[in-house]
């Protein structure tokens, strides 16, 4: 079931006129370039459903975290005035 394509948009009409003036090879190329625009006219962008978490920009491996944890605890214990 095909319906005749109605073009109400003058912009599209002008584009088609220009397309008609192009040579055969150029026309093919133009159609090829425009095809993705026609087939994927609707782009959906969905917002993330999880809260955005900004991690500190720090490079640390889990192994280093555990290695330094005892030192950190000792540091706090020995310098209670500033912690």
């Amino acid at each position: 079931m095909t319906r005749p394509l109605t073009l109400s948009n003058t912009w599209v009409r002008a584009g088609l006129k220009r397309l008609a003036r192009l040579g055969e090879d150029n026309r093919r190329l133009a159609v090829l370039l425009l095809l993705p625009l026609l087939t994927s006219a609707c782009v959906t962008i969905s917002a993330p459903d999880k809260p955005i978490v900004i991690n500190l920009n720090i490079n640390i491996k889990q192994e280093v975290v555990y290695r330094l944890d005892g030192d950190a605890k000792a540091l706090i214990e020995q310098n209670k005035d500033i912690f």
Partner: protein
Amino acid sequence: MRATFKGLLALAALPMIAGSMFAGPAFAAPNPDYARAKAAGTIGELPDGYVAIVGSGDSMLERVVSDINKQRRELYTATAMEKKATVQQMAFVTGCNTIANTKPGEKYQSPDGTWRTRDASAPVRDTRCP
């Protein structure tokens, strides 16, 4: 090769250690303003191991924050060198602990950057915290 590298590292560290010994008192007297501000929640703990003013502060709070952070940075630097870690890593792991240690009513910052008041439940910390 490795031994010589270690030797060089130790040589490089020597003047720094010596320098820190003569650079005035390493441990300043307890700052009563800091203790008060911490309890009042006008100064809070950051996930990176330092403190900051919660909301709008004044010049007194700014002084306290910079004084505490300066002392903390010195400690992190010394310990990081000793443990062959970066200052940032040492500060981060300490930050995990200072946030865990906050008492109910005290302020800390969660990884998304919002200030929270510590309650009876566990604080919201960086996922990399132990």
